[in-house]
């Protein structure tokens, strides 16, 4: 008898982890990706890494696969609702082209809610787009309660993305965060601040990265609106700094 589970809110990183597992262990999910790419045979993922960084940026999921005895690479960008960073799709494509130049098959894909990719011109830079909904359907098709639960998690993320706000970029705020990022990147490297995207007027969240060996979720964010640029709270650690 299945237990009723209150579904948590999933963030992009949570979905990265879910996708990693599904790509490695769920053939039906692999088939969704191979169909989107128009491949003639199903592939199997042999290895899948998260947050792979190179000189041109970060790849959310980098999966190595085998198809008809040959190897290939998938570079997957996962988007719930955030806007692309400047030239981000183009950089994905360039990375895939660079890998393909080495003789292996390499594709870049975007996975996002259907609503995100529809009419999004930037999405055309990817070799294919896969929707959360199709992946959820593949996971749910296993027929197990666990599969249904995991499918529900993805669909809940879709619902939340639909109800999320739409960012109206404020150039002066975006520029401010670019200045903060440049100083943090060059002078405060241990903070590992993530490159900011377009920001709305009231944006007061600083996004830093922590060593994954200590904790997975390393977002430092404001709990309330404030005037200053930085109000930090590390909720997991319950350590706070207000300034």
């Amino acid at each position, binding site marked *: 008898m299945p237990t009723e589970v209150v579904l948590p809110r999933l963030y992009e990183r949570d979905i990265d982890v879910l996708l990693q597992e599904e790509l490695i262990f769920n053939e039906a999910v692999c088939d969704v990706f191979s169909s989107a790419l128009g491949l003639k045979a199903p592939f199997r993922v042999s290895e899948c890494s998260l947050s792979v960084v190179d000189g041109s940026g970060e790849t959310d999921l980098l999966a190595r696969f085998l198809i008809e005895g040959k190897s290939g690479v998938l570079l997957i960008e996962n988007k719930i609702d955030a806007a692309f960073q400047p030239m981000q799709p183009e950089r994905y494509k360039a990375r895939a082209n660079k890998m393909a130049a080495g003789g292996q098959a390499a594709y870049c894909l975007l996975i996002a809610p259907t609503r995100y990719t529809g009419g999004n011109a930037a999405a055309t830079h990817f070799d294919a787009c896969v929707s959360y909904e199709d992946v959820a359907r593949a996971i749910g098709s296993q027929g197990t309660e666990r599969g249904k639960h995991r499918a529900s998690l993805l669909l809940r993320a879709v619902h939340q993305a639909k109800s999320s706000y739409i960012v109206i970029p404020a150039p002066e705020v975006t520029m401010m965060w670019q200045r903060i990022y440049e100083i943090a990147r060059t002078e405060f490297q241990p903070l590992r601040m993530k490159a900011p995207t377009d920001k709305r007027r009231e944006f007061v969240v600083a996004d830093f990265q922590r060593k994954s060996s200590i904790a997975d979720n390393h977002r430092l964010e404001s709990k309330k609106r404030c005037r200053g640029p930085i109000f*930090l709270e590390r909720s997991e650690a319950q350590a706070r700094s207000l300034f």
Partner: protein
Amino acid sequence: MTSGTTAMFRVLVEKPSKGWVDLTDEQIRKSLKVAESLLNFYNTHAQKFEPAKLPSA
């Protein structure tokens, strides 16, 4: 200062101007320095905050 399982830090920094997007680079550096100190504090005391998530090595 601690309250239950919460550790609180109070640091002195300049009050931001009304148009806070006009902060100077030096003001930004001061704030980031505080953030760095907080991170160092956390890393130093990670065992206390998150004993289950510490690396095994």
